[in-house]
């Protein structure tokens, strides 16, 4: 815990190499390099959650993105294997105001810096992240290059302009598992004082499409008594049905949903009505496409852990965890067939819907949290109930 005090210092100030973040519009931020001394490119997005940086790093939905964390003190509690949302960080790069060299938490098994450096992720610290966020908020998210090894800002801007735009990009297929696998690990308590509850005997077999799945979704599903088979994004409807699932789950994932229209969305369309389906995030967007709707890109997306979502069925507001740059246009849905169930109170975007006649429901946000509030855990129970009802 006390290690890592040995950075070179001058005038009492830690000296690190120059790191540069260059945006496609020519804006350049210079700071200090704190992670891997490499250069990476991606869409620059911001997340406003105060806690949960490790979950953000390892959420595959951030693939292709350089993440700006608005909270200025990052790395304080280190990193622990238990908090990983996938096998390794997926973010292309990290932008923070101040990165802690020390980790202070009994759960940590390494410092956050070690964690990122091991995966070759560049980190720039010391830049005015608030100014950057205000820039992204008013101009919209944009492409950028983060160099943890310095470099000519002009050249980096040019590079940023050459990377493919997020719109139209199928990243889900790229990050999806190559092999089918089983999952049965439920939620593990993070403290002797946390009561996660008893896991009921597994009574439902759920086939989960991995478009960039967060582990906590699997843990949550296992927690409510699901036996899981995780399948690659390209799995056909027939192959899924051949596994005789009680339900199908569609995961979160990175990139633009629209390129998935002819692939996964077409397969999902075939599954609608034949098996209960639950979708989260990209899974929700795929269900939107499969139900005849359209998706669009948000100006700067929703990324954070404090979004109010109104559940129009219960009339209650849930504080929810978000990570999405695209959304389903509610105007594009056939409301005779589809019922809007969740709306975002901040900007009136669609956050969830269900089919009136088929066992299908989905939410745009992250009920599995990690990071974020647990207000929406009930959706996993709802999925079980849906499968219970369908089974009978």
């Amino acid at each position: 815990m006390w290690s890592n005090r040995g950075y070179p210092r001058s005038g009492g100030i830690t000296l690190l190499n120059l790191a540069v973040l260059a945006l496609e519009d020519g804006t350049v931020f210079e700071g200090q390099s704190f992670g891997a001394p490499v250069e990476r490119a991606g869409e620059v997005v911001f997340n406003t959650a105060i806690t949960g940086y490790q979950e953000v790093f390892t959420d595959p939905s951030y693939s292709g993105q350089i993440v700006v964390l608005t909270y200025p003190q990052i790395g304080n509690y280190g990193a622990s294997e238990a908090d990983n949302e996938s096998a390794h960080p997926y973010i292309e790069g990290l932008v923070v105001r101040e990165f802690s060299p020390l980790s202070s938490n009994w759960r940590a098994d390494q410092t956050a810096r070690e964690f990122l450096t091991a995966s070759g992720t560049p980190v720039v610290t010391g830049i005015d992240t608030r100014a950057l966020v205000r820039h992204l908020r008013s101009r919209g998210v944009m492409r950028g290059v983060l160099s943890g090894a310095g470099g000519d800002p002009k050249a980096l801007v040019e590079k940023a302009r050459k990377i493919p735009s997020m719109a139209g990009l199928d990243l889900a297929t790229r990050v999806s598992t190559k092999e089918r696998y089983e999952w049965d690990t439920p939620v593990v308590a993070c403290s002797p004082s946390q009561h996660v509850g008893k896991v009921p005997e597994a009574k439902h077999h759920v086939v989960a499409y991995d478009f960039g799945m967060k582990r906590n979704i699997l843990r949550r599903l296992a927690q409510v008594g699901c036996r899981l088979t995780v399948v690659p994004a390209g799995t056909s409807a027939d192959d899924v049905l051949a596994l005789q699932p009680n339900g199908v789950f569609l995961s979160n994932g990175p990139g633009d949903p629209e390129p998935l229209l002819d692939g996964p969305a077409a397969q999902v369309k075939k599954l609608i009505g034949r098996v209960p389906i639950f979708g989260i995030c990209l899974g929700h967007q795929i269900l939107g496409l499969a139900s005849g709707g359209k998706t669009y890109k948000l100006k700067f997306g929703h990324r954070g852990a404090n979004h109010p979502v109104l559940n129009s069925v219960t009339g209650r507001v849930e504080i929810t965890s978000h990570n999405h740059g695209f959304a389903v246009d509610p105007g594009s849905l056939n409301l005779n067939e589809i019922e809007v169930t969740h709306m975002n109170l901040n900007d009136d975007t669609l956050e969830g819907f269900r089919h009136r006649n088929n066992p299908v429901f989905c939410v745009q946000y992250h009920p599995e949290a990690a990071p974020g509030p647990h207000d929406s855990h009930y959706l996993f129970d709802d999925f079980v109930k849906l499968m219970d009802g369908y089974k009978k």
Partner: protein
Amino acid sequence: MPRRNDLKRILIVGSGPIIIGQACEFDYSGAQACKALKADGYEVILINSNPATIMTDPNLADRTYVEPLSVEYAEEVIRRERPDALLSTVGGQTGLNLSVALAEAGVLDKYGVELIGAKLEAIKKAEDRLLFKDAMHKIGLDLTQSQLVNSIEKGLEFAEKIGYPVILRPSFTMGGSGGGIAYNREELVEILESGIDLSPVHEVLIEESVLGWKEFELEVMRDLADNAIIVCSIENFDPMGVHTGDSITVAPAQTLTDREYQMMRDGALACLREIGVDTGGSNVQFAINPQNGRMVVVEMNPRVSRSSALASKATGFPIAKIAAKLAVGYRLDEIKNDITRKTPACFEPTIDYVVAKIPRWQFEKFPGAAPVLGTQMKSVGEVMAIGRTFKQALGKGMRSLETGKSDGAVKYSEDLIEARLITPNPDRLGYIRYAFERGYSEEQVHALTSVDPWFLRQVREVVDEEQAVGETSMENTSKDVLRQYKRDGLSDNVLAKAWNVSPLTVRERRKELGVTAVFNRVDTCAAEFESFTPYLYSSYESECEAAPSKRKKVMILGSGPNRIGQGIEFDYCCCHASYALQEYDIESIMVNCNPETVSTDYDTSDRLYFEPLTLEEVLNIVDTEKPDGVIVQFGGQTPLTLALPLKAAGVPIIGTDPENIDLAEDRKRFGKLLDDLQIPSPENGTATSPELACEVARKIGYPVLVRPSYVLGGRAMVIAYDEDTVRRYMQEAVHFSQDRPVLIDRFLEDATEVDVDALADMSGEVLIAGIMEHIEEAGVHSGDSSCVLPATSLSAETLATIRSYTERLARALNVIGLMNVQYAVKDGKVYVLEVNPRASRTAPYVSKATGVPLPKLAVGAMLGKKLSEMTDARGELKVPQYFVKSPVFPFNKFPGVDPSLGPEMRSTGEVMGVGENFGEAFAKAQLSAGSPLPDKGRLFLSVNDRDKPGAVALAKKFAELGFELAATRGTAEAIRGAGLTVKTVFKVNEGRPNAVDLLKAGSLSLVVYTGTTGAHAFADEKAIRRNAVTYRIPCITTMSGARAAVEAIASRRRDPIRVWSLQEIHGTPSRTSGVKAKESATR
């Protein structure tokens, strides 16, 4: 669920006087609640005994009762006003307790008043230890393990089960005596044995120790539809063992993983639901074992609190305002977020900065009290600082305290390091820094303090930087490094000291290099949405969001952290200054760093800068805003200290010229002015050495009053009866210099002291606002003395002299705005003691008593308006009834401290009593101040020889009222000589049973004990006064106070329970702000 239309009239209960643990944060929350409900069309009735608050301003409620917060008076208010509901949750513990008492006494049922905010059952569940324990177990939340035991065996058994150390608390012992911490079997047996013996029920609570655990707090809100949110998380720098109010706290929590934080969030929400807080805000405190993450609930408060005020200021989310709206039926998602305007209040604020709160203590005012922190709160105020990083926030916080510690003015001793780190104390942070300077490692400091390693690393890095600064020169420090220093919170003063240049030189250098402060917004959302509210803090980031307007604007410098002598009264003045500016269509800009206050509500001024009140930070704001004027006369000493340097820097100060404010403090120049005006003052002189001081004192004649220049609240002021005292004072007690000499005045014994507040404008017109007669004789600090408006015993001639002197002084000093003069009247002669050409502590009290907001007129005068344009009143404001202001003391928090009154101010707050006669007003004031006078029983008298004749007359009056009399030998003889029956009682050193024994036995109901004021108090006096405090027996230490008490008791016997609202007293239409208040014709 929209607003409830079945409710029309709502009673709000305030929190009463400022005391330690319950300060002006409840003025902030109460004022917010009043405003919110009134804006929503409800008729608001308010009861609060504290006249210094903004919430008791007549325009904040429809009916404002400055009356005692007791069941009988509150019932009378309810009987007259017939409210439909009572909002119980915005008046602190006092408000909550009174609400419960009213409910339990059947008053609410009798008048059909509904309790809103928190229901009786919920309050009880949260407050009752056992009910709370059951409730928490029901929802699976851990508490510290504890058990009541009545034998050593059972104690040992339980301790073995939970492990050492354990905390022991004997049941029902006074002040927790007999308790302690046992680290092993032997200590347990020892403490348990004595504890079982000391406890009247022979029971001791054995509790698992959580000392050194990490401490957290969550601010929670819930609406009637069961929507619940966390507004803010707070982590304490000081681990468990120090009261949260005495801890340095940080928002948001820094060292919790998301999983732990969400577990805590789940726990807090479950707690709120189980306790049954239907609507409003609560806080839930947790402790976490840093070794294994075990989490326990420490406590929850089913109401808004000190930390909710902090959380509101830290996030920009107004908890009390929203709580009030939820209480009348609104849902969170029906309320808009004021700051973003577009998004709803149903969300969880997220922040992109770090907030640090640091308490301010004043142990130096209470000699005899050990400066040690524990589970009882001792701090009198606090500051909050916002920085982009923790380091920056901490640096700003330390200089906001105005203790001089941040500039290295304090001397530390290497020998004390370990002791100061192990035992929490007011300067632990200073000692942590010092330990790092002396080469201690983080591991060592952690082992001694249990402060989280993350915090220690931050502190150490700043210390490293500060040490490194001096290794190079200013010229050789690069722009990047300089910028990093500023980003890490190093002040220009610290840099200047290290570089051996002046702070202004550093400032110039910074500007040259382009290292200048910018301002960021507090926006509830980490910049995700646009912010419409200019709530700003400084940083050294790249982009300034201040966006100053082109309007005509005036900046008000606030009063910083509350401290004794400079408290809420000055905040009242600053807020009114702001309101007045807005009414004159001038943009108001507030600068302050006290999170408890109304002035730091983003709603109060057009623009709010939450910044330390230092020259550096104020000049940064001036650079950005370029105000047309800066007001320094409302914030007490804090802005006055800055007045001359600001003026020198070319900042336009409006109102009385700082040179003249300074003149009034400069003994020599001021003495000459008095001579020129032929106004008498007590003989006086100045001294810059012990020898000189003794010489001056000898020349003047004893007793003399000795004090340093430039102090507020009588800091370090003594009355010396002999040369020894003067010499000792000069040698030990005080710092002085050529430009700040010690002042020595002849002390006028037995004089009546008078306080005058007055207003003056540029044309030289003067309006006397109030002539307040003190009830205690001169020699008791004016802030510690009760006083009455109008004066009751001064002759017409004396009053005329006072008016004339006041007018002449105001004109001579070219006062523009407020002025306060203190006089002593002795044998018909009027002496000027002190002139302060600025707002005084009494300004709010006088405003309430006269119905005229003085600061408002003062601001008008500063803007060039004539008093006669603004008010119809001429000469002197009328006072339509009797108004008594009484001080409230914190002696019960400082066991062992002699509670006698003297020239050093020690009261933390004040109350006001209103009556048709002096006795009635005084009786109410005493009741409100927490020292209610008895109606009957036995009076104990012990007076010095000088007071014996007076004591006889006094005894006679008490006897007439049916009191039994008891007195010490000398006093008893005098009384008996007048034919009265009196029991003779031993002094403490004369034998037993003595006065203290009687006091403890409960056979005395009132004590009048006059010692030799200011001289060495005898052990006997101290014992009596101390025990009177402990056993809550009113103890009067002056004859004039005793005479007032007789009148008060007579009134209680004679007058019915009656109350008046300020609106009816002053005939103010309730919905106007009333600069031109109609003056009542009565009286």
